[in-house]
């Protein structure tokens, strides 16, 4: 891979932007953090990180104009990657706190895990055939920290993970075209996560 790619990390007031940008630096990928639409337009790939609450995140995106910008970029086939809450924001809606509309880029919604559980810790990835960009990470163990999970058409699910004695399925990655969401934190999953992130970023624009 020869082309140097530039990642624009979308700053919407909450999220672990610094963790993501230092992780990218560790794998030799240049990035910048910005809330400025003109600046973000210059990036090869937009990255939407997120740690926090869905309603507050959407409020921030809407009030800053970043929602329309991201929706517009998705419609123009730009590469966008969402991480954790960032993945959830890509969907049509979430039921966290109250029903809140998301960016609507990937069909589906986010609903509470059964018994209001949380999915916290390291879990392994079961990469599906449609997740071909991520096949090298099949069976790798990565870090999750969330309590809402994707519910939507199967064709948008790229990777699954499983929890509990009943093997309850949790979509670990979703995607539509060049927009991909990762429910886990690759930037906090040591070598397994950084390798996945590097691989994905280098291939998503191809």
């Amino acid at each position, binding site marked *: 891979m020869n082309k140097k790619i530039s990642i624009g990390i979308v700053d919407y007031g909450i999220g672990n932007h610094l963790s993501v940008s230092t992780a990218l630096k560790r794998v030799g990928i240049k990035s910048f953090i910005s809330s400025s639409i003109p600046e973000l337009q210059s990036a090869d790939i937009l990255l939407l990180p997120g740690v926090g609450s869905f309603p507050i995140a959407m409020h921030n995106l809407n009030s800053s104009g970043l929602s329309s910008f991201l929706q517009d970029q998705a419609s123009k086939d730009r590469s966008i990657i969402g991480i954790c809450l960032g993945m959830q924001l890509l969907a049509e809606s979430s039921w966290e706190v109250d029903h809140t509309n998301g960016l609507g880029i990937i069909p589906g919604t986010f609903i509470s895990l059964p018994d209001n559980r*949380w999915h*916290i*810790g390291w879990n392994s990835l079961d990469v599906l055939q449609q997740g071909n960009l991520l096949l090298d990470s099949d069976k790798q163990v990565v870090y999750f920290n969330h309590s809402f999970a994707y519910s939507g058409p199967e064709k948008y699910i790229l990777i699954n993970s499983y929890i509990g004695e009943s093997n309850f399925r949790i979509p670990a990655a979703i995607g539509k075209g060049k927009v991909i969401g990762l429910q886990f934190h690759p930037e906090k999953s040591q070598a397994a996560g950084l390798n996945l992130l590097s691989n994905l970023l280098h291939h998503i624009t191809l």
Partner: protein
Amino acid sequence: MLKKRIIGTVLVKNGIAVQSLGYSRWLPLGDPLVLIQNLERWGVDGITLLCIDRGNSGPDIALIKSIAQMGLSTPFSYGGGICDHEHARLCVNLGVERIILDRVLMNSYSVCKIADTVGTQAMIASLPLLLDSGNNVNHINYVTRKKTPIAEIMQRLSNFRFFSELLFIDYIGEGFSNGFDSRLISLSKSFADSPILCFGGISTAQHIKQLLELPQVKAILIGNSLNYRESSIYHLKASLADLPLRPHSPFYL
């Protein structure tokens, strides 16, 4: 399947990493940044930083910023001095995955605001506990030394649903080999059915196995003993191969 975790823990007092002995004596270990770097390199499943002298003065933002600049690629939790949602937001924005709350636990308004800001998956309730002479589990306020039966604490924690995990700290056993008393868990079961993390006097593989085999226990936090030997995590995980743990993965990048 979801793995159980071995989390390396660094206690900081007056800006120095310390080895704690029963919450009353502290031996200096050195620069917390060095210890944290080591823990990541050795491949722990998580890193927790507990600043034990913050009181109401807020989190140690300068230290958290220094850690953020190191660029940790390991899940990182912080406790010490977090009193409101602004403190929580600052910590999370600087790369803290999960915050550990103690003094603010009984303040329902603050806990609710914190949950709205950072999400419940980011919140851990810290509960220093001890057994009394009648084998009853009591919460102990480490500032006032006041003891309260755990049943009463759980009832008062009406905002309990905001905490994704409970950190049970063995107040008496902390700092001593095999100090953590598993009865703190078995005797609390009817009052607290949330996932539990254990801390305080946990070091040997046998003791870790005993605790991690309990269904409710999702992780153990180890402080002092991990610093004695670089290959501690490797040897621990090798001895615990029959537990659902992440395979040993030293992290060099």
